[in-house]
């Protein structure tokens, strides 16, 4: 029985793997022309954290992207290129998980990737995609560093921290001024990853310039099991405004604990609050949610297409969250670029994306205009929970209600 203890010798191993690598190398050169023959679907990587701590947001993002792809395909696909084939990926709520998916998607020869959701995931995945000159459209990830590293492949459709915090502060000051400046002191409660910490840093720098005194900034991990201590601190210092910046579960726990401990500041003003602009939160905890204000991603309430999608999503027993309509819009943005590029070639698609003036999206942004990968038209809006619904209160061009501040006793 020769070779029983050593079924594969070192030489055999080297011989087979080397030839395998050689075949793969030849394949990678020869394959694209075969794969991209006429009528072959265009592969689009749809990458979200659908498991792990961020899985709810990830699944909502995937829902938005796949709904758009289904619609485009039902209408015959992309003119001249055919249907879109979604290559779904799970970032498992970690940057490493996201990077691994980018590698897989690159091997699967996707033309472009959409998604990422969390800032830290987007930072890693866009960089991994840049190695393959693979165009990447970030759906949400708000950290400004995502688009300031000079990566030619990276495009962000939504607004970043800088714009969001600036708008949020300007609007907070405007709302406070309009009410006769009842609020002077602020406490910030933020989750401690890139998203919350980055935002807290910006707020700490900019709030004093607007005349607000920051009493304390409280970071917390995700997940946090109990917010009683945080609320105790808020209660002891009695700020006029509490600014939470965290993800959905923690936001809900914080708001519930505040209600339980009967802490009622003049206003809860979130910046990218995980639950403040969530129909789910408003439906499940109307009392805790009432009068909460938020500066966040939001659809254009006057856009008929957005209202139609809202109905469609709700008919599937899902909530119409910002992940859904931002990913939906991003897929249409990519489809528009693919059509103009008339090719699934990555370089041509990158050029088409960079020159995009796409305006068929659902957001209150106007035509798309990328400058160094950032959509300059992107801006957040201010919402407030009023009459058990979420209303847009600022900017007035899109508003369907007036802000109520300070909150009535």
């Amino acid at each position: 029985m020769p070779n029983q203890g050593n079924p594969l010798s070192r030489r055999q191993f080297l011989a087979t793997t080397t030839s395998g690598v050689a075949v793969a190398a030849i394949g990678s050169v020869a394959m694209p022309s075969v794969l991209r023959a006429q009528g072959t679907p265009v592969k689009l990587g749809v990458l979200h954290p659908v498991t792990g701590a961020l899985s709810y947001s990830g699944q909502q993002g995937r829902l938005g992207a796949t709904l758009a792809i289904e619609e485009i395909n039902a209408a015959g696909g992309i003119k001249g290129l055919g249907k879109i084939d979604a290559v779904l990926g799970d970032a498992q709520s970690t940057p490493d998980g996201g990077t691994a998916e980018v590698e897989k998607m690159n091997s699967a020869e996707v033309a472009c990737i959409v998604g990422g959701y969390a800032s830290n995931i987007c930072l890693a995945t866009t960089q991994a995609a840049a190695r393959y000159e693979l165009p990447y459209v970030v759906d949400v990830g708000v950290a400004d560093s995502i688009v300031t590293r000079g990566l030619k492949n990276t495009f962000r459709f939504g607004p970043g921290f800088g714009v969001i915090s600036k708008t949020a502060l300007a609007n907070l000051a405007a709302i406070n001024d309009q009410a006769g400046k009842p609020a002077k002191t602020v406490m910030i409660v933020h989750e401690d990853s890139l998203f919350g910490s980055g935002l807290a840093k910006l707020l700490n720098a900019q709030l004093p310039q607007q005349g607000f005194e920051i009493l304390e900034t409280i970071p917390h991990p995700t997940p946090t099991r109990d917010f009683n201590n945080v609320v105790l601190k808020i209660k002891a210092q009695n700020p006029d405004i509490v600014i939470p910046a965290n993800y959905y579960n923690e936001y809900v726990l914080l708001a519930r604990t505040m209600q339980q401990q009967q802490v009622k500041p003049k206003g809860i003003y979130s910046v990218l609050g995980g639950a403040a602009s969530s129909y789910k939160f408003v439906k499940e905890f109307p009392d805790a949610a009432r009068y909460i204000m938020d500066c966040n991603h939001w659809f254009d309430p006057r856009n008929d297409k957005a209202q139609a999608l809202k109905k469609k999503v709700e008919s599937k027993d899902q909530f119409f969250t910002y992940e859904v309509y931002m990913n939906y819009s991003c897929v249409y943005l990519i489809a528009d670029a693919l059509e103009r590029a008339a090719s699934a070639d990555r370089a041509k698609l990158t050029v088409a994306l960079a020159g995009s003036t796409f305006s068929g999206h659902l957001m209150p942004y106007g035509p798309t205009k990328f400058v160094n990968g950032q959509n300059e038209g992107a801006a957040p809006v201010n919402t407030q929970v009023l009459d058990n619904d979420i209303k847009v209160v600022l900017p007035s061009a899109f508003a369907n209600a007036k802000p109520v501040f300070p909150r009535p006793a």
Partner: protein
Amino acid sequence: MLSPTILIPAILNGLLIGAIYALVALGLTLIYGVLHIINFAHGALLSAALFAAFFAFRLLGLDPYVAVVLLAPLFFALGYGLQRFIIGPASHGDERNMLLVTLGIAVIIENTLLYVFRADTRTIDVPYAFQTIDIGSTFLAVSRVVGFVAAFAVALALWLVMTFTDTGRAIRAVAKEKLGAELAGINVAHVYAVTFGLGTACVAIAACLLIPSYYVNPTVGDAFVLVAFTIVVLGGMGSVPGALVGALLIGVAESLSGLFLGESLGQIGIFLIFIVVLLVRPSGLFGARA
């Protein structure tokens, strides 16, 4: 920050959250102490129990405090079945295999929950969710106070079972000397399964007490299990009073270190105490000396 108006409520909050940890840790310490396996499925079973309590409320209209009467026996049966028909046979008596099998079960449970219910976070809105008891300096949530009392009741019941019943004696005998117990006529496979069942029933009780003030999603159990493992080692493996005292201690330590060091560093307090106790008393606070 040292003002009693913050310090006293923080300690009380620590005790209340510690009681919930105790309920999760009680199940774990039984399984750990008798079967000598690190039950990686404990967190996933907690998630499953939270889902069960959630749907008992949503579909059957059962209040979680009523549902406990139904879910505790149901999860006892589930735990019994898991150990008797899956973990036991699959591990062939090797404790290392048991550990891997429970890890496998955890992956299956979590992913099944994810597949069936999506990652959506769900909550229930019971009438007493926002009811509080005013103790002057702070408000204590009624649901947390109920959890606190229940943790003591469950710990007492478990202690009575372990000390005065034949089943308890058999469990302790198996934990101490498996072969000897077998020679004395104890059905070891049955005792293992009963222990796993009791541990799983504790998880169901914890879930019913937790759901009025918390949320459920397929991975929610993970947030409690690392703390529960720490409590089990801290209190002494297999010790019921140890799990209870350890959990309350950890709850207070977490609360105070969260208060002084910030929530992000709150875990430091837990592990500092853990390391100190292991250095001074390696068998844990209530563990039998080796």
